[in-house]
């Protein structure tokens, strides 16, 4: 029996989260296979084959996988599932969409956002916005899991695993009546939020979308950082939803997290409290964010952030 990782990629390269899932998979001491689904994804399959700890790469290539549907991805995984005792992926929008479908089709439970693998069927995962950690045991013969990527180390490269091409007929469109129509991706020069070394996040105090950019972008540029936002800032229209950090957005754990004008509601800190160093800049000395910050600066962000940019240059 083997374990299988559903690779996460952007059409060109693997996402760092996939490397972290490979590390996590070592806990089971089973031969590890990586499933790469994509269109013209040869280089991605090769990248996966180079990760240490990978025994085999399974590559499914089809035009329909340029914009993969959960229905097709789940069917591919179920098609090969009899070889696997563990099916896992980093906890992302893709895996959240696909893996529960796989679990239901296999009639097994799923564990979402696992932070620790305690045993082959026992895990720790956050509940109640991360204010409680639950140790959970699964009785299923097949374990279907998403992992909080930031809890695991990036696996090294230097491997040369075999790549096996797999042909699976994809009937998602016809069978389930689903068609991909369009996408709208926010293009940015900045690093990907989920894997950035430094994250600068803004709250609703920034006041407007224009100020959110005007104040935070220079700091992000100076530190080669990704931008994040609270739910309040996103709801107010100051930032796009895909950079929301928190319980219902993205969970990050960068080396440095700078929270600008953020009060520190538990739903937000759930998404960043594992950062190595947390800095908080807030006008309100009593803001909850200061309870999790390593360095807290009580100041007006409209003065402090530009001053910080100057001091760093």
């Amino acid at each position: 029996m083997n374990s299988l990782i559903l690779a996460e990629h952007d059409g060109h390269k693997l996402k760092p989260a996939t490397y972290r899932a490979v590390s996590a998979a070592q806990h089971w001491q089973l031969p590890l296979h990586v499933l790469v689904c994509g269109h013209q994804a040869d280089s991605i399959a090769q990248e996966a084959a180079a990760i240490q700890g990978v025994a085999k790469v399974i590559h499914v290539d089809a035009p329909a996988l340029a914009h993969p549907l959960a229905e097709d991805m789940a069917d591919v995984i179920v098609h090969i599932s009899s070889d696997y005792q563990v099916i896992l992926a980093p906890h992302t929008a893709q895996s959240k969409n696909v893996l529960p479908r796989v679990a239901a089709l296999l009639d097994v439970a799923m564990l979402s956002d696992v932070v620790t693998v305690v045993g082959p069927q026992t895990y720790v995962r956050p509940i109640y916005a991360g204010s409680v950690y639950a140790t959970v045991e699964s009785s299923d013969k097949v374990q279907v899991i998403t992992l909080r990527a930031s809890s695991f180390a990036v696996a090294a490269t230097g491997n040369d695993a075999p790549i096996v091409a797999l042909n699976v007929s994809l009937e998602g469109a016809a069978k389930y009546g689903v068609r991909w129509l369009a996408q709208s991706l926010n293009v940015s020069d900045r690093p990907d939020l989920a894997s950035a070394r430094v994250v600068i996040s803004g709250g609703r105090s920034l006041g407007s979308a224009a100020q959110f950019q005007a104040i935070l972008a220079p700091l992000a540029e100076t530190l080669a950082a990704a931008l994040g936002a609270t739910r309040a800032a996103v709801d107010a229209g100051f930032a796009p939803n895909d950079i929301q950090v928190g319980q219902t957005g993205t969970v990050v754990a960068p080396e440095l997290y700078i929270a600008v004008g953020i009060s520190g509601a538990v739903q937000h800190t759930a998404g960043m409290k594992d950062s190595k160093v947390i800095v908080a800049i807030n006008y309100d000395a009593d803001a909850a964010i200061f309870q999790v910050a390593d360095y807290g600066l009580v100041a007006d962000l409209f003065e402090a952030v530009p001053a910080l940019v100057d001091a760093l240059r």
Partner: protein
Amino acid sequence: MKILVAIKRVVDSNVKVRVKPDGTGVDIVGVKMSVNPFDENAIEEALRLKERGQATEVVAVSLGTSACQDVLRHALGMGVDRAILVETDAPLQPLGVAKLLKAVVEREKPNLIMLGKQAIDDDAGQTGQMLAALLGVGQGTFASRLEVHDSEIHVTREVDGGTETLALRLPAVVTADLRLNEPRYVKLPNLMMAKKKPIENYKAAEMGVDISPHLTVRHVAHPPLRKAGIRVASVHELVEKLRSEAKVVS
């Protein structure tokens, strides 16, 4: 179009839950309970579709103990046409809930099934997708926009890095993101009227569904609190610390 909305009774988002001293579970005796916020977005979207003449009936369903009647009354107060309680005292997990909802779907035959994208207590985010798989239908998860086009719907959904739009043939399952809409407040007169409306009751045990849990919670605990650090007096001092002490900037 008939819409079925599945809603969950959860600890209110403002409550700070405490773990029982013996670590066997979370202490929710006497705490405020509410409709899961994302499920409210699902109810709201269904009601708007009806108000636009694109749906004919909205049915809310909740699964659990008889206490779930309070969230069903909230849904009736918002304006759903009917409310169903699938009653059980047994512990429910996403796979079991999906199987029960499949049985409800087979009885009610809705054209569209909506749920919130995740429940804020277990933060699992699985039930909608599991239900879609069991029904053999398409899914539009984390929906921030929904449009009806004849016998299909167009769902714009949140993905890492942006959004994508899918066309789904009905029946389909949609899970709601916060961005889908802003749920209406229930006015007091509507809540009073809702108290008089009937709530249909199905007993989960009689629905021929295996809901035995596959997962066992062994232990719960609060994670170690991150220690509060220091206050810095100035930007200058902050940069000093980040460079020499934390060594995270150059």
